[in-house]
C-alpha cells in the first residue's frame, strides 16, 4: 500500500481528533458540555486499552494462551469495588483539588513535597517504556501496512533514519495535541473536556476496529467460533492456547490479576481519567458496569485472531504482535487493514495523550516547580506572574516526555515484545497502590512509611525488571541476568533469593509489592505522624463522614489579604484570582475589602485554590511563606481531631435524642388530648349525675316538706306522697348502686360468682322481670330461645342484669302499641349468642361505636337520649368482656337496632358434649 495513502489517512484521522477536542472545549466554554452522558466517562476510562491491548493481547494469546485475560479481569474486579474505592478517591480529590496521583499521595501524607516528587520520578521512569511501546506499535503497524500485500513483513525500506521515522512525527503530533488540549488551564484539577471527548471517541474507534477484524476473521476466514476452535483443537500445539501455560501458569495468573487491579487505579493516565477528569461523582455508577463490559467486548475476539494467525502463518515468519493487521492483509482486504491500523493508532495516541498530560502535571507541580521555587538564585519566588512559567513547564514537560519515549523506543524498544514492556510499567505503577489505597482506609500510615514502601518497591522493580531489560539490550553485561550481581546466585534478578516458579514479571511483582507493603506497614507503625500528617490522614479517611474539617484549624496565624491575593494571582493569573476571591466572599457573605487580615478559613481557601494549580505540597509551602504565626502542634491536632470525632458523635446522639424527644412529645400530645377529652367527659358526667341525683332528691325533699308542713293531710294523700318518696328513693338507690357497680367494675373489685349454668332460665327470668314494662307499653314480644342451650360459664346475676338492661333499653326506645321486640338465643361452637332486636328509631352509624362508652348519652342528640343514667351499656360491656365475650350493636336509622352479645360456653360442658357425641 502506498505510503502516502496511509499517511494521509492517519493525518486525516488525527485532524478529526483535534476537531473533536476543539469542539468539546468550545462547548465546555459555553457551558453546554459535550460529555454530560456518563458513557463518555466510561469510554474515556477505556484508555486503559492501549495499542498493547490492540496488538499485544493477540500476541500474548498466540504465545502463551489464556494469560492475557488477567490484565482485563483485574480491572473488572476492581470496578466491582468501585463504589467503595473509586468513589472515595473521587470524593477526596474533589475536596482537596488533587491534580495527579503524585499530588494524591503527597497530600495524604502531610502534603509532602518529597513524597510527591518521588512518585513523579517513579511514574516517569516507569511509564516511559510504556509510552515508547505505543510509538513502537504505531511504527511497527505502519511498516506492516506499507509492506502490503506482503502480509506480516516489514517494508524493506522501513529501517528509516529518525528524521524519516513516522513514529517521531506521530509522537510530536501527540505532544502538540496534549499541549493544545491538556494544558489549557492553569488549574490542573480542572477538566479537559475536549481531550476527554476525543479519548472517548478513540475508545470507540479501537473497539469498532477490533470487533471488525475479529468478526472478519471468525466469520469470514472461518465459519464461526465452533469451526475455528475445532480446527485448532485438532492440533495439540494450537490447542495449547486454550489453557493456562503449563509451568507457572497459575501463579502468573494470580500475579497478573493483582497487578492489573492495582494498575487500573495507579497508572497516572487512569488516575487522570477516572479521578481528575471526573465531571460528576454519579458518572461512576454507569462506569462501574460499562467499563468492564467494554473490556469483555474487546477481548472476545483475541483468541480467535491469535488462533487464526497461527493457522495462517504457521512458519512463524510473522510476529504474533502483528496478527491483527497481518490477517486482513493476507486476506487482501486493504480497507479493513486500514481500519485496523487506525484502531491501533487511536489506541496508541489516546494513551500517549492522557499519559503525557498526567505526567507533565506531575513533573511541573511536584518536581520542577518546587525545585525552581527553592532555587533562590533564580529569583522566581519573587516574580510577579508565574502563570506563564507554570504553563511553560508543563508544555516543555510534555515535549520532553514524548521525545524521551521516542528515544527509549529507538534505543531499547526493539528488543522486547510489546506485552513485556507494558507489564514492566504496570509493576512500576503498582508500587503506588499500598500508599494510596491503605492511605484512604487506614489513618495510621505515616509519611516515613509511605517513603519507605515506595523506595523499597521501586528499588526492587529496578533490580528485577529495569536493569535486566538493560542487560537484554546489551547496556549491561548479560552475566548480570544469568549469574546475578557480582556473580552471587542469590542476587539473580529473575530469581532473587532463589525464588523460582514465576515468570520475570510475576517474580518482580511478588518481591516489589511484598517489600513495599512490608516497609510501608512496619515503618508506619514505628514512626509518628506530625500534626499536618494527622490532619491529612483524617481528611482522607473520613471524607464521607460529616465531621467538621480540621484543616481550618491548622493555620493559626493570618496573612494580610492583599498578600494572599497577590500570591494566588501569581500562580493562577490576576483575573482568575480576583474572581476566585470574589466567589469566596459571596459564598461566605463577607466583605473582603473590610477584611484587612485574612482569617484561617480564607488562608485555607487560598491554599486549596493554589493546590489546584501547583499541587498540595507546593501550595502549602507557598502559603507557609506568607502566613505569619505558628502552626498547631501535634497535641493540639490530636485534641482537635478528638473533639471533632466527639462532636460528630455528640451530634449523632443529639439527633437521635431529638428524634426520640419528638416521638415522645407526639405521644404526650396524643395522651394529653385523650386526657382532656376524658376530663371533659367526666365533667359532663358529673353534671349529668348531679342532675339525675337532684331530680329524685328534690321530689323527696319537697314531698317530705309538704308532709312535715302539713300534718293535717288526709291519710290517702299522705300515703300517695309517701309512695312517691319511696319510689324516688328507690330510684336514687338504683342510680347509686349502678355508680358503685361501675366503679367496682372499673377497679376490678367486683365479687364475681362464676359458675356453669343453663342460660335458658336466666333469659326467662329477665323476660319475666321486664314483663310489666313490656305490658305497660303494649309491646309485641317474640322470643326464640331453644330449650337445650349448652351451659355457659358466667356470673348468673350479672348476666341477668345485662339481659334486663338490653330488654329495658329496647322497651324505652320503642313506641307504645307499635313497638316490637325480638329476643333470640343461639349457641355457636364456643359461644352463646343472645340478641335483642327492636323496631325503634335506630342509632346512627357515627354513634354506634361510642354508645358503649360511659357518659356518652350526655352529648347524644335529644331523640336518642335514653331515660336513665346512661351507665347501663357501659356496665354491660364491662360485664360481658369480663366473661370473655363481646357485645355489639347493629343498627340503621329508622330501621330499629339489634344489640347482641356472646358469652363463652362452659368448657366442662363442651367437653362433656363432645365426649357424649
Amino acid at each position, binding site marked *: 500500500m502506498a505510503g502516502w495513502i496511509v499517511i494521509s489517512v492517519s493525518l486525516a484521522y488525527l485532524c478529526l481528533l483535534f476537531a473533536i477536542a476543539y469542539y468539546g472545549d468550545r462547548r465546555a466554554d459555553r457551558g453546554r458540555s459535550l460529555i454530560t452522558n456518563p458513557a463518555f466517562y466510561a469510554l474515556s476510562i477505556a484508555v486503559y486499552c492501549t495499542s498493547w491491548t490492540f496488538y499485544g493481547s493477540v500476541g500474548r494469546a498466540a504465545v502463551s494462551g489464556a494469560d492475557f485475560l488477567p490484565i482485563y479481569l483485574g480491572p473488572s474486579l476492581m470496578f466491582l469495588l468501585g463504589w467503595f474505592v473509586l468513589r472515595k478517591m473521587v470524593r477526596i480529590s474533589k475536596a482537596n483539588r488533587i491534580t495527579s496521583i503524585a499530588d494524591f499521595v503527597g497530600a495524604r501524607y502531610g502534603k509532602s513535597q518529597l513524597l510527591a516528587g518521588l512518585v513523579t520520578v517513579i511514574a516517569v521512569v516507569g511509564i516511559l517504556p510504556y509510552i515508547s511501546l505505543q510509538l513502537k506499535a504505531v511504527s511497527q503497524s505502519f511498516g506492516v501496512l506499507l509492506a502490503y500485500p506482503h502480509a506480516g513483513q516489514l517494508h524493506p525500506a522501513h529501517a528509516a533514519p529518525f528524521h524519516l521515522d513516522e513514529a517521531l512525527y506521530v509522537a510530536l503530533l501527540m505532544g502538540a495535541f496534549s499541549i493544545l488540549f491538556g494544558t489549557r488551564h492553569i488549574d490542573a484539577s480542572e477538566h479537559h473536556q475536549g481531550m476527554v471527548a476525543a479519548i472517548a471517541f478513540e475508545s470507540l474507534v479501537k473497539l469498532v476496529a477490533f470487533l471488525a477484524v475479529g468478526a472478519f476473521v471468525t466469520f469470514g476466514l472461518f465459519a464461526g467460533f465452533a469451526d475455528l476452535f475445532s480446527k485448532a483443537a485438532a492440533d495439540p500445539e494450537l490447542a495449547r492456547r*486454550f489453557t493456562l501455560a503449563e509451568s507457572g501458569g497459575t501463579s502468573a495468573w494470580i500475579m497478573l490479576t493483582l497487578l492489573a487491579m492495582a494498575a487500573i487505579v495507579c497508572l497516572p493516565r487512569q488516575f487522570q481519567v477516572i479521578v481528575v477528569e471526573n465531571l460528576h461523582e454519579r458518572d461512576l455508577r454507569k462506569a*462501574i458496569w460499562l467499563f468492564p463490559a467494554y473490556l*469483555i467486548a474487546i477481548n472476545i475476539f483475541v483468541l480467535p485472531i491469535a488462533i487464526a494467525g497461527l493457522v495462517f502463518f504457521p512458519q512463524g515468519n510473522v510476529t504474533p504482535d502483528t496478527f491483527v493487521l497481518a490477517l486482513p492483509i493476507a486476506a487482501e482486504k486493504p480497507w479493513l487493514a486500514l481500519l485496523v491500523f487506525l484502531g491501533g493508532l487511536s489506541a496508541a495516541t489516546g494513551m500517549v495523550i492522557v499519559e503525557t498530560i498526567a505526567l507533565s502535571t506531575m513533573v511541573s507541580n511536584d518536581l520542577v516547580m518546587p525545585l525552581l521555587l527553592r532555587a533562590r538564585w533564580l529569583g522566581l519566588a519573587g516574580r510577579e506572574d508565574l502563570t506563564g512559567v507554570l504553563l511553560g513547564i508543563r508544555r516543555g514537560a510534555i515535549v520532553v516526555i514524548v521525545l524521551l519515549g521516542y528515544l527509549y523506543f529507538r534505543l531499547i524498544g526493539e528488543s522486547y515484545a510489546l506485552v513485556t514492556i507494558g507489564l514492566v510499567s504496570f509493576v512500576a505503577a503498582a508500587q503506588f497502590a499500598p500508599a494510596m489505597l491503605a492511605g484512604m482506609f487506614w489513618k495510621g500510615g505515616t509519611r516515613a512509611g509511605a517513603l519507605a514502601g515506595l523506595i523499597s518497591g521501586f528499588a526492587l522493580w529496578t533490580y528485577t525488571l529495569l536493569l535486566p531489560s538493560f542487560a537484554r539490550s546489551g547496556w549491561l553485561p548479560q552475566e548480570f541476568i544469568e549469574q546475578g550481581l557480582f556473580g552471587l546466585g542469590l542476587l539473580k534478578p529473575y530469581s532473587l533469593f532463589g525464588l523460582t516458579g514465576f515468570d520475570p514479571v510475576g517474580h518482580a511483582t511478588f518481591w516489589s509489592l511484598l517489600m513495599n507493603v512490608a516497609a510501608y506497614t512496619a515503618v508506619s507503625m514505628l514512626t509518628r505522624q506530625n500534626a499536618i500528617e494527622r490532619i491529612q490522614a483524617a481528611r482522607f479517611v473520613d471524607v464521607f463522614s460529616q465531621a467538621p474539617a480540621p484543616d481550618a484549624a491548622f493555620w493559626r496565624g493570618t496573612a494580610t489579604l492583599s498578600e494572599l491575593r497577590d500570591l494566588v494571582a501569581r500562580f493562577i493569573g490576576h483575573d482568575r484570582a480576583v474572581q476566585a476571591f470574589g*466567589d469566596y466572599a459571596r459564598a461566605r457573605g463577607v466583605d473582603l475589602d473590610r477584611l484587612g487580615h485574612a482569617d484561617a478559613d480564607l488562608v485555607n481557601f487560598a491554599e486549596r485554590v493554589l493546590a489546584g494549580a501547583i499541587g498540595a505540597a507546593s501550595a502549602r509551602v507557598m502559603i507557609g511563606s506568607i502566613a505569619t504565626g505558628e502552626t498547631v502542634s501535634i497535641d493540639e491536632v490530636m485534641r482537635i481531631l478528638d473533639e471533632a470525632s466527639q462532636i460528630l458523635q455528640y451530634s449523632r446522639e443529639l439527633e437521635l435524642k431529638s428524634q426520640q424527644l419528638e416521638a415522645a412529645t407526639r405521644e404526650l400530645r396524643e395522651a394529653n388530648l385523650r386526657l382532656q377529652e376524658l376530663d371533659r367527659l367526666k365533667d359532663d358526667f358529673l353534671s349529668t349525675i348531679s342532675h339525675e341525683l337532684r331530680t329524685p332528691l328534690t321530689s323527696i325533699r319537697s314531698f317530705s316538706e309538704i308532709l312535715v308542713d302539713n300534718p293535717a293531710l288526709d291519710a290517702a294523700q299522705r300515703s300517695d306522697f309517701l309512695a312517691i318518696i319511696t319510689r324516688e328513693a328507690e330510684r336514687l338507690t338504683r342510680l347509686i348502686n349502678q355508680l358503685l357497680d361501675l366503679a367496682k367494675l372499673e377497679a376490678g373489685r367486683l365479687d364475681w360468682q362464676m359458675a356453669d349454668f343453663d342460660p335458658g332460665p336466666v333469659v326467662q327470668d329477665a323476660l319475666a322481670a321486664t314483663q310489666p314494662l313490656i305490658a305497660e307499653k303494649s309491646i309485641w314480644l317474640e322470643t326464640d330461645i331453644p330449650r337445650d342451650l349448652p351451659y355457659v360459664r358466667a356470673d348468673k346475676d350479672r348476666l341477668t342484669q345485662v339481659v334486663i338492661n338490653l330488654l329495658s333499653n329496647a322497651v324505652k326506645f320503642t313506641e307504645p302499641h307499635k313497638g316490637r321486640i325480638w329476643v333470640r338465643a343461639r349457641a355457636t361452637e364456643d359461644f352463646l349468642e343472645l340478641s335483642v332486636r327492636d323496631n325503634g328509631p335506630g342509632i346512627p352509624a357515627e354513634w354506634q361505636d361510642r354508645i358503649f362508652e360511659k357518659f356518652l348519652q350526655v352529648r347524644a342528640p335529644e331523640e336518642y337520649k335514653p331515660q336513665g343514667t346512661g351507665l347501663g351499656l357501659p356496665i354491660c360491656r364491662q360485664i360481658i368482656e369480663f366473661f370473655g365475650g363481646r357485645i355489639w350493636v347493629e343498627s340503621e336509622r329508622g330501621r330499629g337496632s339489634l344489640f347482641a352479645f356472646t358469652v363463652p360456653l362452659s368448657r366442662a360442658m363442651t367437653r362433656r358434649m363432645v365426649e357424649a357425641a
Partner: protein
Amino acid sequence: MQKATFPNRPAMRGPGSRAERFIGLFLIGAVAFVPPILSLFNSRVLLGGIPILYLYVFTVWTVLVVLAALVVSQLPAERAHDTPTSNGSAAERPETES
C-alpha cells in the same frame, strides 16, 4: 418507644447494605477467577465449539457485569456533592458539605 430508639436506622442501612452487594460480587469474582476454581476448567475440551476455559471465564465475567449493573440500578439516586467543578474557580463549598 422501641421504634423511636433507632429512628433513622432503616434509612441509613438501606443504601449501605445494597452497596455491600458489590463486595459480595467482588468476592465471587475473586474466587471464580483464581486458579483453584479456574483450574477445574483448565482443559482443552470444547463445549459447544468453544474452549471450556474461555466459555467459563467469559460467562462468569458477563454475569458479574450484569449483576453489577443491577446493583447500581438499585442504589438510591445520588444527591448533592455533585456540583460540577468544571468551572474550577467557582466558590468552594464549605468543607462540611462535602
